[in-house]
């Protein structure tokens, strides 16, 4: 059973969408579009697929969320008024309690019959929970969400903007989640471009290509793969040999007009 994100190219990459009840880690450095993609997932769920959603943020106040969403044409206030979406600005300890006892978040899930949830960002838990307990807390949180049959997206911040190292999280979260979507900034011909790839989906095949994407006034738009380049994930890709050779041949055979 698939849960479409409503971003058609991403759904194609995921072979139909996220798996129902799965937890997806959306990882990327600041400015890559994690929040936009996560919000788009919830808005599309509410408006196109009749699946209500809950957005939990530790970073931004609701007013900021409403304003930013409005720039993409998403009327969050209206969706909240219709009971299709709820934005909750809280702190990590509250989220952790949510696993342990009945609290307002659990109540909201029941109230709006949420099927989708976004936690933005899971990286904040590291500041509130001791490192030795973090993995266990995350494990409990993931299990709790799965028991509630929520299809979840966790955003996580990667600290490396460009470079050839990829550390998804420091606590082994990549092993706990079912799906990992990586957002990356890459430099191509002195331009910073955004790249997206699906690193894993448990129990399903997926598109393994690295694709360029943009944040447009309509939200995330995923474009063609970086087929002409090698080493894109290192942050400094170079053209593939045949592509480079083709361009060099063209340059060699082009006689400049005098």
């Amino acid at each position, binding site marked *: 059973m698939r849960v479409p994100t409503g971003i058609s190219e991403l759904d194609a990459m995921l072979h139909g969408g996220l798996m129902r009840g799965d937890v997806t880690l959306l990882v990327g450095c600041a400015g890559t579009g994690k929040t936009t993609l996560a919000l788009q997932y919830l808005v599309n769920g509410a408006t196109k697929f009749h699946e209500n959603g809950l957005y939990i943020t530790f970073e931004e106040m609701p007013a900021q969320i409403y304003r930013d969403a409005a720039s993409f044409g998403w009327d969050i206030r209206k969706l909240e008024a219709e009971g299709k979406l709820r934005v909750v600005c809280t702190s990590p300890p509250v989220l952790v309690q949510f696993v342990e006892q009945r609290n307002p978040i659990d109540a909201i899930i029941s109230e709006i019959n949420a099927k989708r949830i976004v936690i933005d960002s899971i990286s904040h838990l590291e500041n509130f929970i001791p490192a030795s307990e973090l993995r266990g807390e995350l494990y409990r949180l993931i299990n709790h969400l799965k028991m509630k049959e929520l299809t979840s997206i966790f955003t996580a911040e990667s600290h490396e903007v460009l470079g050839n190292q990829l550390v998804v999280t420091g606590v082994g979260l990549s092993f706990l989640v079912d799906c990992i979507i990586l957002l990356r900034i890459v430099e191509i011909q002195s331009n910073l471009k955004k790249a997206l790839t699906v690193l894993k989906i448990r129990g399903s095949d997926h598109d393994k290509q690295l694709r360029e994407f943009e944040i447009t006034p309509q939200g995330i738009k995923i474009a063609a793969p970086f087929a002409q380049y090698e080493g894109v994930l290192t942050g400094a890709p170079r053209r593939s040999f045949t592509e480079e050779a083709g361009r060099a041949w*063209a340059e060699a055979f082009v006689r400049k007009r005098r």
Partner: protein
Amino acid sequence: MTTIPLSKLLGAMAVPVFIAILVALNILEPAKLDPALIFDPPLLIPTVNLFVSLVSFLVAYISARGYLGTGSTTLVFLGGGVLAYALAYVGSSTFLFQGSSNIAFTISAIQFLVGSILNAMGVVLALRASEESRPVRGKIVLLYVGVLILMVLVTVASSQGAFPPFFIPGVGSTPPRMWVLGTAVCVFALSSLGVMRLYAESKSDILYWYGLAMALIAVGLAAFFLQRVVGGPIGWVGRLAQYVGSVYFLVAVLATRGARTKGTPP
């Protein structure tokens, strides 16, 4: 004053050396060749031809990538020409292996001619400094598929007897083959001169080795005029010239990487 690297000098030497050997053999080789001097194992030619074909396919592919990346129409014709050259080897090897020498020589002669003409068109466009345009994938697909279809049509027509014989076993090449090959030799030689003229302006390693490769192809094809028997010394020197030409194609491809690391013109 710029000095020419030794590798380039040695590379260029191959052309006069092959010509000199062919002239010498033509003078020294008796009209009736001793069977001991004939060397024609059945699998050797197809095997070496496979190398020529693979290198030529690589050049055709790189030309296609270059066109799609830049819109240079020159590369469409160069790629089509090299593809026709590769298919000449594929077709002739296949039919030679089956013992259909007339079909093999008909396919190779016509494909060599087509290859030479397409190459020449590419070189002429380069010399005229034609403008680049927006790359259209269909354009290059059309030409490449057209070259392939042409080979199929020539094969069918040749096997149906639609062409005059190009090769009669026991007799040798016929005038139609000589005319077709002769034209291809001239066109390849002229194209080589055109590429060398481009090289004189840009000093591009790619052009240097590409131009020499075309010259060696012309020399190799010219040897067919002189050979008296398949598998004789003249025939092998001609083939060797073409094989070395393929190595030069490969050097031209690898020159891309050298130019990138050294910052020299590609």
